């Protein structure tokens, strides 16, 4: 027993010595050291704007009653680094660019809560008919759009997380009313769960409201993607 106490005390002696040095030189050094520990040397890089193409340049698009919607899922890690300053995939976030061109003669409303991500075959989803009443977002298995401010980035410093969220917000798709001839675009973010990643067939579901007829038109844009290790 004495032997154990003796060995333990030897381990503590350098700590005691260090504390005495700090005490001798005042608390100033300690505060400086503590500040350095808490601070991050992270300096936010200036990130480029995403170059959105005319809607005709996108291959994954649908047109219904003159309303054209295109999507481009961001699946390359390099692109995340380039445009968001961080590989969002490592945080299980899938980002999808949405480009909309209202070439119809009616006004349409596009709301973020009517945009969702599904996995599997569209034909298996009974809600995904073109005249559904209930929002698909509330259907089982649908992944709703997430606000960047609600995403926890626990693997990075607070300053870096703030900067990433700022970049996500500046590029985010917002709910909008599009008059005939209007265009809009932006990114939507989906927080995936581990169980979602087993799928390789996906689709983005977007419902647009015709303000004149008060009917919803559903767009289901499929894409294939497998999470790579």
């Amino acid at each position: 027993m004495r032997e154990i106490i003796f060995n333990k005390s030897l381990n503590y002696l350098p700590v005691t010595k260090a504390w005495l040095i700090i005490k001798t030189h005042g608390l100033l050094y300690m505060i400086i050291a503590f500040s350095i520990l808490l601070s991050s040397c992270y300096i936010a890089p200036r990130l480029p704007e995403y170059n959105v193409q005319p809607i005709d340049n996108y291959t994954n698009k649908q047109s219904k009653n003159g309303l054209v919607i295109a999507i481009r899922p961001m699946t390359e890690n390099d692109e995340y680094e380039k445009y968001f300053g961080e590989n969002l995939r490592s945080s299980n976030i899938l980002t999808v660019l949405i480009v909309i061109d209202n070439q119809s003669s009616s006004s349409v409303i596009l709301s973020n809560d009517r945009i969702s991500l599904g996995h599997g075959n569209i034909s298996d989803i009974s809600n995904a008919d073109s005249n559904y009443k209930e929002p698909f977002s509330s259907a089982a298995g649908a992944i709703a759009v997430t606000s960047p401010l609600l995403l926890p980035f626990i693997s990075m410093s607070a300053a870096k997380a703030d900067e990433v969220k700022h970049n996500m917000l500046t590029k985010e798709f917002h709910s909008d009313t599009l008059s005939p001839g209007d265009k809009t675009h932006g990114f939507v973010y989906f927080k995936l769960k581990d169980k979602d990643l087993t799928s390789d067939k996906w689709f983005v579901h977007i419902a647009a409201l015709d303000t004149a007829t008060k009917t919803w038109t559903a767009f289901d844009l499929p894409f294939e993607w497998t999470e790579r290790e």
Partner: protein
Amino acid sequence: MDREGIIMRNLKVTARHKLQMLLFLFICLTGCTHAWKLSNIEPESYPEIDKLNMRVGLKLTAELLSAEYKWGGGVSDRFIIPLGEIMSMNAQRLAHSLFSSVTTIQDSSASSGEKVDVILTPRVVSVEASRPISGRQEAHTTIILEWTLKDMNGNLIWMKTFSERQSYPTRGEEFHGGNNTKNSLQSIISALFNNSFQAMSTSKEIRDYATSRNM
């Protein structure tokens, strides 16, 4: 003093120092909360227009009234600037400038009994406060405001989102009342409501609905 006595004394000293270190850490890790107020909450003035002939219920939700800009906390001081009052005052001024009749509806209040044709709801989608740790960098503030106009059956008539952001230096402003932050917030809110007024007053969808109601 024998060797065992020295060891025991060292152990006691170490325990006392550990307690002091913990106390020091506790003091460092606990910050104060500072509530700042915007110096000018006078709502925006809008140009006179032919008001839209609609009875509007302006819904001021608890979420809007409790909107705030905040940063810090944890290891540092926490700063809060309430935005609910300036947001609600601006929303009311905007609605009265655009529509012939406006009734304010709050979540907490019972229905006033006034008949309305449509419900206009402003919603603060997000208030982003990105503050640099180092004074060398700028802070970013983004406020996203969403408007929905629905008929009494809950059908959407019009919806639009406005986003305004500003970057500004913050070096040492915690010690000077946060003037840069306050000015930036006022400027953002001013732009948000001016853009909202511009969009609503020229909206084809709102005008079409008002016309169809009055036919």
